[in-house]
């Protein structure tokens, strides 16, 4: 549905051209919630702005249902933009217009009929939970409520693609959670395709089905969230997805008496996260196993458990135990260097 091929973009700066996007290619299928994660300056916002044609790409093509957005002008470009909704970090609402008028904006400029606009806006306000605010002004709303208006506005003209550019980055954690839940619910209900630009791992984990990790204007890794999360190929991806353990208590405790100890990181995905492996391993093998740290979370709907284990026992037994884990679909590896598990 969205296909980006060899997209490049640079900006002129006093210190010469700054390459924001280098040869970026990505395919987004209908219904995907495709996340783009990277540090600031990685090029993710440039990518979003190129797709919405707020910036003109230098080279490459952006095909939305086969139509190359980089080649469109005037009315044809405006029509293409009406098939995309955009949610902004700083909401960008009309401050002198009511909530109703804000949501109605894309419909009005598309020349829809008055009664249809009214019905659609009221329906959307219901979805985002702001029905009672229709006739108030944005200044009276909280940040989270403003973003709900922004989301309703992005969805108003029934877009095929919704671009969320750091949509939750200006919100507090609680509000972020509720906005993510809303987006998830909308995605499930409408099957609309999302591009989600963010620097927050939680956004990718809770919302996205696919992810592209960006660095230096390039996509260095992409795939299903669960795959990239559990098998990061690059150092940047690892840093985003793996927790930094160096701050944790167990890490400091182990660090001092490191010699001769075996610390493992075990990852349980899907079904294996629910079974009683630890119990089985201790019963089968004569080893001592202690759990130093552990977490279980939902990543795009799949349970992912992660344990930091210390195992004491004879070397052959340790090897057998590890093999047993692996046979049962648990990924386990010894943490060699205690920097960052």
């Amino acid at each position, binding site marked *: 549905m969205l296909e980006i091929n060899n997209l490049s973009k640079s900006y002129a700066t006093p210190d010469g051209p700054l390459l924001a996007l280098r040869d970026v290619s990505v395919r987004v299928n209908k219904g995907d919630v495709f996340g783009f994660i990277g540090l600031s300056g990685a090029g993710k916002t440039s990518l979003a702005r190129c797709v919405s044609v*707020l910036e003109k790409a230098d080279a490459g093509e952006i095909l939305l249902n086969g139509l190359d957005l980089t080649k469109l002008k005037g009315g044809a470009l405006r029509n293409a933009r009406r098939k995309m909704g955009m949610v902004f970090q700083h909401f*960008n609402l*009309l401050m*002198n217009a009511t909530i109703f008028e804000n949501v109605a904006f*894309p419909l009005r*400029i598309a020349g829809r009929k008055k009664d249809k606009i009214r019905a659609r806006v009221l329906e959307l306000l219901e979805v985002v939970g702001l029905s009672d605010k229709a006739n108030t002004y944005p200044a009276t709303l909280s940040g989270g409520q403003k973003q709900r208006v922004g989301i309703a506005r992005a969805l108003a003209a029934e877009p095929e693609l919704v671009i969320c550019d750091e949509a939750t980055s200006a919100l507090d954690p609680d509000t972020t959670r509720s906005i993510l839940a809303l987006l998830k619910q909308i995605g499930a209900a409408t099957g609309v395709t999302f591009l989600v630009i963010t620097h927050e791992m939680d956004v990718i984990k809770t919302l996205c089905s696919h992810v592209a990790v960006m660095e230096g204007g390039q996509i260095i890794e992409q795939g299903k969230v669960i795959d990239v999360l559990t098998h990061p190929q690059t150092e940047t991806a690892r840093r985003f997805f793996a927790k930094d353990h160096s701050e944790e208590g167990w890490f400091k405790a182990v660090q001092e008496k490191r010699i001769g100890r075996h610390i493992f990181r075990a990852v349980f995905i899907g079904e294996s996260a629910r079974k009683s492996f630890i119990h089985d391993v201790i019963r089968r093998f004569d080893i001592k196993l202690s759990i130093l740290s552990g977490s279980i979370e939902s990543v795009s709907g799949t349970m992912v458990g992660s344990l930091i284990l210390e195992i004491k026992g004879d070397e052959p037994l340790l090897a057998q135990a590890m093999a047993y884990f692996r046979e049962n679909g648990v990924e386990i590896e010894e943490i060699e260097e205690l920097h960052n598990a």
Partner: protein
Amino acid sequence: MPDAGFFELVFAREWDDLARSLTGNINMTFENYLAHLQRTLPQATIDTIYMVSFASLFAVLFGIIVGMTLYVTQPSGIYALPKFNRLLGAIINIGRSIPFVVLIILVFPLSRVIVGTSIGRTASIVPLTIAAIPFMSRVIEAALNELGRGIIEAAVAAGASPSQIIFRVVLPESAPGLVSGFTLTIINLITFSAMAGVIGGGGLGHIAHSYGVARFRTDMLVYTIIILVVLVQIIQAVGQYISRRLDKR
């Protein structure tokens, strides 16, 4: 005016004395003095309001057109034309740097063509309008530039055309700033109209000059100043009220 009876008995002499000392005319009575003020000041006030109203109306109309043109054609604008923008900016700067007194004389021929005369209240509307347009344009440009880029981008991304952006986003969103700008310009026009009055333009400026300055009538000078102050206060208060009512931010 003091009535017969009590006032006549107690104050008549003093009132007449006051009239005599204010006018420097030994034959002046208070009654004649008031009659003279009534003949001159109300009409002059109406003339000033008349000149300023029409000049403001035209200045706002043209100012919005020119100011909006400046805004949309700036390099980062929604209809960027950098070279044209610089040219227009230069013309406006030239317009703003001509002293108003000189401008009035320069446009005498134009006034004659447009309104048939170069003297009087109607003729003054022409130089007042011309003087106010560059100022108004800059004020409007500044008010429009107060708008964040974000809201314009949101409109662009939603597929709005340049005219839709102007009429559905830019103008409504900057309405409070525009009204403040209009207020500023109207008040400037009152000052300008007083200057026009000195060179045959009519209105309060004419009274202030021909009586207050030319005939050493300090009282007339004071009256015109009081009326001008009241006018400015009213316009400022009304402008501020409207601007606040429009502002939902």
